[in-house]
């Protein structure tokens, strides 16, 4: 056997290569800013035109976080789905592709957290409520939320890549069962024994820790699934 003509790059170089491929269309980074600007303007115009849109306290309530959650879920889904086969064909391993994409998602999460807090500082609105100020907790909450959203998209797309439609049907079937079971459990005697998890009983720090743990579990699950997915 001959030696390798091209020597292996470092882990950071390999992951950065995937980030580069992910954003080969820079428009994917610009588009949310365009949409957020449009939403901001539309919200402002509607508030100005219609008194009904202005809250009682007179504050403009524009929160791009909700839009970003949906946008990031979709783009993460599209990134994993569309670039998986291309990346593998271009000599990239599944692990490098998956973790390189997650690095991209993490960087985007940090960027959009900064954008959201900047907007919140101007509008005074954060998740539809009054903004409490730029702080580490709010910053971390946004990053955890955005990474968690993208990790959910990555892991569900990994299910599709590995098992196709049967995998998705099983996954969503199971999810539907859980969603049906939870309210039933909540009103049952057993449910009354469980600790209540809601915003009133959890501190922001606890929410961040739980959110991070969920995101980490989703990331690991996604990796375990995608590392044996075939290329269709």
């Amino acid at each position: 056997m001959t030696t390798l003509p091209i020597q292996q790059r470092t882990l950071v170089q390999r992951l950065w290569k995937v980030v580069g491929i992910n954003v080969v269309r820079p428009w994917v980074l610009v588009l949310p800013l365009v949409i957020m600007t449009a939403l901001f303007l539309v919200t402002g115009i509607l508030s100005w035109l219609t008194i009904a849109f202005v809250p009682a306290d007179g504050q403009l309530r524009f929160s791009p976080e909700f839009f970003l959650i949906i946008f990031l879920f979709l783009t993460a889904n599209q990134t994993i789905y569309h670039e998986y086969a291309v990346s593998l064909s271009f000599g990239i391993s599944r692990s490098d592709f998956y973790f390189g994409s997650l690095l991209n998602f993490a960087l985007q999460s940090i960027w959009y957290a900064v954008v959201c807090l900047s907007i919140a500082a101007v509008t005074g609105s954060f998740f539809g409520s009054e903004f409490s100020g730029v702080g580490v907790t709010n910053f971390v909450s946004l990053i955890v939320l955005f990474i968690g959203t993208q990790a959910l998209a990555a892991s569900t797309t990994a299910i599709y890549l590995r098992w196709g439609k049967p995998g998705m049907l099983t996954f969503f079937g199971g999810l539907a069962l859980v969603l049906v079971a939870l309210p039933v459990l909540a009103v049952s005697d057993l449910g009354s024994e469980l600790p209540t998890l809601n915003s009133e009983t959890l501190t922001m720090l606890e929410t961040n820790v739980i959110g991070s743990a969920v995101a980490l579990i989703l990331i690991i699950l996604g990796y375990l699934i995608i590392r044996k997915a075939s290329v269709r």
Partner: protein
Amino acid sequence: MTKVIEVNNLTKSYRGATAVDSVSLAIEENGIYGLLGRNGAGKTTLMKLVAGHELASTGEISVYGASPVENSAVLANMAFIRESLRYSENYKIGHVLKAAKIAFANWDDAFAQSLVDKFQIPRKRLVRKLSRGQLSAVGVVVGLAARAPITILDEPYIGMDAVARKHFYDILLADYIKHPRTIVLSTHLIDEVADLLEHVFVIDQGRIILDANTEDLRGSAAVIEGSTESVDDAVAGFVILESQTIGTQKRVVAQGLKAEDAARLQSAGLAVKPATLQQLIISQTNMDSSEKVEVA
């Protein structure tokens, strides 16, 4: 010559259906290899296994002495371009080339741009809106300009018209001479690629039924044509790979003829010419696929 790919007793099954069945082969560094076979013979599955895109059911694959599965060091030396490769929804050719430039260490951007012009790929149109032939050309451009030490091309040129395919074969050969590397081409258009290939593997029903140097293969059989009676008399004692009778005329593909045999048959009024690669392979694939044919 050193081996860069070694496959030993490789099998891939899908829910009882065996796509690749106990395949063993070796590919040496710097050569153009053909993986030939009919549609559904197992070519794509075998290539996917070698590229680490599929996981083997049993058997071993070694690329540069290691398994290619999840091996970044090995995969960095490999490009695997398939006809059915789908690019990101909103990619234009420029995005594909930019991604390839990031991915491949030996990427030649000037060469890629010249190929885009040569194959007349529209630069402003989305890749998903390209015609099948143009999409094939995108794969060809990436496969050639990547200059990956191991380049696996799974019929990416199949959607191209005959003229474009001829361009591709010419460019491939010229570029290979300037930048030698290991190229594995799969195709069922055997005659078109016959002059390119140094070695062929023929796969049928998941099994390698022919593993031969192209030159050895070309000299191994001849086509003999003439009246049925005289052909029957002449070919007695030779291995007949294929036989076809039309009216009073008969045409056979016979293996094992020496130069003096050919001269004797020609003097008896029979037409004798070397069998083409396609004739040989069609003959072989018509044989019992459990028999692997060895060509000296």
